[in-house]
């Protein structure tokens, strides 16, 4: 890629982030509602764990209760972030179709990779900001024992998980290109399955074996498990390397594969005239 081409693509990349920022700002009331919804969901899970003592757990097992509280809160907080990033990326096409701008964006003289990476970057920035706000509320409202937490390991796992998550998001964003009528609903279904099989609120060992097998190939499983181990038990970076490796490997496979599949889906949509049609 020559310098000029790179500059051109970088400009467009910035354009997508800038556009999303403007959209979030213009739809601020909606965004505030979603933030409140996410916050309430996480707090509900936290209070559910805090209330377990009233269901018969003895005082002597207070430590266990605190561990449960932390276990569930970490799951809820991570799920909020991961599902939000997944949602934003996977709805990139749905949103443009809804606004009526899909043809304008697809007609632009830029690489599709730039388009998708720009959307991913905007989603990541926004996801981190929203998760940080919810995280601060959790820290303020719950007495969390994070003395043994290894923050570095948690952060590295968190970063490594982003790559396969983006791949999954791009894969899901293909669905509305394949089916303008049903693609959006299918994206919700994928999100629901990820919640079920990835061990967000429970270890996947409690799942029946067919679901457990699917859970093993979900990148979210390794992220949630690793981050929990790091924050609850101080998992060292060295000990987390296998999980980090698996996540990076999944990312290296999923991102290019999803971009390639997106390209094929775009060719098909242009052949069948599906780009414009709204559901």
């Amino acid at each position, binding site marked *: 890629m020559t310098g000029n081409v790179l500059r051109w693509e970088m400009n467009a990349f*910035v*354009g997508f982030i*800038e*556009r999303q920022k403007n959209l979030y700002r213009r739809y601020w009331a909606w965004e505030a509602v979603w933030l409140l919804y996410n916050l309430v969901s996480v707090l509900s899970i936290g209070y559910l764990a805090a209330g377990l003592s009233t269901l018969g757990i003895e005082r002597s097992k207070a430590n266990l209760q605190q561990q449960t509280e932390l276990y569930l809160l970490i799951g809820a907080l991570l799920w909020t972030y991961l599902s939000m990033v997944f949602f934003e990326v996977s709805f990139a096409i749905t949103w443009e179709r809804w*606004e*009526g701008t899909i*043809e304008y964006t*697809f007609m632009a*003289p830029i690489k599709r990779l730039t388009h998708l990476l720009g959307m991913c970057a905007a989603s990541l920035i926004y996801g981190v900001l929203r998760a940080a706000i919810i995280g601060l509320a959790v820290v303020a409202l719950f007495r969390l024992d994070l003395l043994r937490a290894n923050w570095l390991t948690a952060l590295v796992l968190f970063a490594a998980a982003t790559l396969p998550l983006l791949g999954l998001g791009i894969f899901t964003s293909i669905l509305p290109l394949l089916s303008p009528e049903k693609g959006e609903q299918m994206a919700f279904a994928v999100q629901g399955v990820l919640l079920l099989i990835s061990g967000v609120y429970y270890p996947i060992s409690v799942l029946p074996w067919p679901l457990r097998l699917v859970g093993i190939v979900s990148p979210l499983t390794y992220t949630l498990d690793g981050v929990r181990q790091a924050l609850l038990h101080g998992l060292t970076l060295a000990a987390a390397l296998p999980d980090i490796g698996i996540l990076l490997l999944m990312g290296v496979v999923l991102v290019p594969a999803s971009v390639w599949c997106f390209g094929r889906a775009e060719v098909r949509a*242009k052949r069948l005239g599906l780009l414009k049609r709204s559901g």
Partner: protein
Amino acid sequence: MAIHASELNSAAVEVEGISKRFGEAVQPHRLMPWRKAKKPKLALDQVSMHVESGRITGILGANGSGKSTLIRILATLLTPDAGRASVFGSDVVRHPAQVRRHINRVSVEASFFKEMSPWENMLYAARLYGSGGDGTRDRVEAMLERLGLPLDTLDKPMKQLSRGQQQKVAIARSFLTSPSLLLMDEPTTGLDPRSKREVQELVRSIRRDRAATVLLCTHDLQEAEVLCDRVVVIDQGRVLAEGTPSDLIRAHAAPSGSLEDAFMRLTGKRLEEDEEEKEE
């Protein structure tokens, strides 16, 4: 993207035998009797045409005649089933990236993020077309001023602008990217008379300045007669005739007819009849 002298001497658009069909034939199935039989729709049937650089070429046809399908193929948003099309020598299927650098499109429906302002939408467009840095705001303001849009509309949400104002922003946005080929798909449809006249004046100024090649889809025959250097009459996906408006009038509506008379003679019906058929 400015046109080069070499481009002025060449064809801006070459279309050879383009066909496009939508939908696959569905036959009723013995085991699925609820499935209705469907026929595929032939949108374009062996269309060939040639558009000269620096001119305004009109594509005349009723709704559903295939005009927008042709525009979408040239805009690399649809792939033809057969035939080939090229823009400034680049094939729309094999080299879409090169084609996209030359074109922009103003469509009948405003393709904007409706909550975002004209400025935010235009900044996004500028970014996609390689600019958007310093000086963009000044260029946008100058362009909107030229189009007669009050500058206080620049930061209001698009949804608060009238249809005419939105269409002017769409045209300004396409100018911002300096296309060599401007694809205008019914840019004046649904506009009030004043806005329509202003948009037409703008198209005239493009012709005066020879700033770009324009492919103008319209079913307004008066508009075509006044604005276009050449017109192509299209009906049910087929090209019926092409030439200058006066050539077509001479050939099909002599001795003292109008382009509308020529259109009626060629298609065997008035545009209004097509509209009525569509409504039924």
